[in-house]
């Protein structure tokens, strides 16, 4: 476990995502501190050194997140700071706490400790509707009545923008049109959700969360269970958001290649701790694949970033 310093981003990368070493004194954060990058350590998330003009500052500090039914927290004392206006991918094996971290960041799970700040404000103290106007979350699995039409579903994305009695305004309609357009589901507009394929459904749900018109967008495994075509469709939307808007995107991905290709920054989680974070070429290494994913793999440089060629699973020899 000494090699994990290799996976750390070097100090020059601007502290986009960082691990709070001081609070992570917990023993679950194995192999920590072997390569502290002093210049990246900040006292709090308000040190907005990389803030761009309009993009939102979004950071979690010293997060302890767990489920009410379990004693042990899943994420224990981690800090995450997301690059404003860019795409950050969370990767890690099953059960490493990616979704839990995302839910904690989105105020869908209450924090045992720590704070999540959006433009300097504590999201867990914000009014739920106000938060939903700034931060959108697409869950891993979604349900809707089969007879609901695509357009109506996307219109529900406007919920946080409407008062109890407000009808759909022209502004709402424009946002719905833009979202449908961006997700490329215009041809499905009048169809019932129940008739769509899994891939089409996912695009429609993305359109719904886009209609929410938020500064920060969190996507929980948007490509899992989709065929290759729809996976690429989804990632293309993410790419468009990165290139053409100020939206800050955090996306949980299972496919490391995909994460390396489309994300500006990656955060690798292992057992509830941040193992490494930084640009893909720094994070995706053969050592990381062995330590975090338990896979022997060859990492090659492709035109769009590192590419993983998995060889075989490693059987637990080191862990116990």
């Amino acid at each position, binding site marked *: 476990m000494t090699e994990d310093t290799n996976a750390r981003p070097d100090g020059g990368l601007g502290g986009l995502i960082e691990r709070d070493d001081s609070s992570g004194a917990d023993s679950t954060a194995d192999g920590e501190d072997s390569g502290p990058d002093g210049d990246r350590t900040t006292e709090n998330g308000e040190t907005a050194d990389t803030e761009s003009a309009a993009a939102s500052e979004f950071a979690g500090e010293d997060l302890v997140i767990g489920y009410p039914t379990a004693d042990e927290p899943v994420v224990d004392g981690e800090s995450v700071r997301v690059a404003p206006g860019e795409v950050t991918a969370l990767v890690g094996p099953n059960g490493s706490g990616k979704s839990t971290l995302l839910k904690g960041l989105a105020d869908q799970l209450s924090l045992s400790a720590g704070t999540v700040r959006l433009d300097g404000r504590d999201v867990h103290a914000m009014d739920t*509707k106000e938060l*939903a106007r700034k931060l959108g979350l697409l869950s891993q699995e979604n349900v809707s*009545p089969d007879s609901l039409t695509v357009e109506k579903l996307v219109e529900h*994305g406007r*919920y*946080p923008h*409407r008062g109890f009695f407000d009808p759909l305004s022209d502004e709402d309609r424009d946002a719905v049109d833009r979202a449908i357009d961006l997700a490329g589901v215009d041809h499905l507009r009048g169809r019932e959700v129940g008739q769509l394929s899994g891939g089409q459904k996912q695009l429609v749900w993305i359109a719904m969360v886009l209609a929410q018109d938020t500064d920060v967008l969190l996507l929980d495994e948007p490509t899992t269970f989709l065929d290759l075509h729809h996976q690429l469709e989804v990632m293309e939307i993410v790419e468009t958001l990165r290139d053409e808007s100020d939206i800050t995107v955090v996306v949980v991905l299972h496919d490391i290649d995909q994460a390396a290709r489309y994300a500006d920054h990656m955060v690798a989680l292992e057992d509830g701790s941040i193992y490494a974070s930084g640009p893909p070429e720094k994070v995706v290494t053969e050592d990381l694949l062995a330590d975090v994913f338990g896979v022997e793999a060859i990492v090659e440089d492709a035109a769009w970033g590192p590419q993983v060629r998995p060889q075989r699973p490693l059987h637990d020899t080191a862990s116990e």
Partner: protein
Amino acid sequence: MASESADATDVVATHRRALEWLSGSLWSVVLGSIAVVVAGGLVQVSFGAYSMTIPQAWGAVFDTDVIFNLQAWEAFLLGSEMPDMETRSLIVWNIRLPRVLVAALVGMNLAVSGAIFQAVTRNELASPFILGVSSGAGLMILLVLVVFAGVTLSIPYYFGTMILEISSLLPVIAAVGGIVAFLIVYAIAWKNGTSPVRLVLAGVIVGTVFNSLQTGLFFFADDIGVVQSAIAWTTGSLTGVDWEEVRTVLPWTVVALGLAVVSARQLNVLLLGERTASSLGMNVEKVRFALSAVAVLAAAASIAVAGIVGFVGLIVPHMVRNVVGSDYRRLIVGCLFAGPALMVAADVGARLGMSVLLGSDGQMPVGIVTGLLGGPYFLYLMRKQERMGEI
């Protein structure tokens, strides 16, 4: 001129969009239901113990002396003294029509209440009574009729005291019992928030205990009359209702159903699942409790005048959903019309069925008829639909 016509098209477009949810299928439900209510109502006013011909009865319904008589309406709706009118008009307007009206109001309340609970629990098999309302009301009914039968309440009044037989408060006590049971269910289900499954389970728990107590109390009833009265209340009956029941149920109906109509969008968002609703900024626990409270209010109002009428709240939302889809803006409006249709039609059977089939003048509780209609309809649905359960 050009801009004027553009404005006009804009206005037209806005109106069209505002009313787009009034789909053709919804119109067919509304018009079909009105036809059933009118037909059922005309049958109800035409037959009964006081015999008159159909033209006489219908003449009495459209008796302009009553329709345009302010004093008569005051008597109907506010309970002031009834003005003099023809015997036939009196019978039609004072005995037969209010029963139709109460049936329609009860049908509305139950149908909308069921529709709300089906969204709150995201389960098509939910009914207004799923969260313990019927068992709480039933237990209180039995307690009043069996245990506290002779108790009188003396309420201090401006001058002296008002003496009340407790049985005259039965409707209110039953409704309150239902509401209390609902609150107990919610308290049991609550543990850092609730979930549909926890609520339904808590409803089953409270229902089981209360129903056992209720059944146990039947053993202490010493009089067949008391038992019959208890059965009429716990199966739901409209026998003997008049304008007083209309006055009892109408205000609550207006409040509950008005809230239900404006909450349709909240119900639609709730149907997307808790997680999505919550990430869209809905305070799910608060909205769920508020909507359940509206549904319980509607159910309690109907219990206060008709007892516990089963199946209406279960099957009407189903029937309407099959026609208009699951959009609650349509579904609630559809239920407002289809509920009365089923209830009025069932009450025709309850009031006149015995005399047609057996030649006796007895009436049966309307809840028996709704059960007899509801069971087979559910069988049909089960056969037709592949998948039942989740909306």
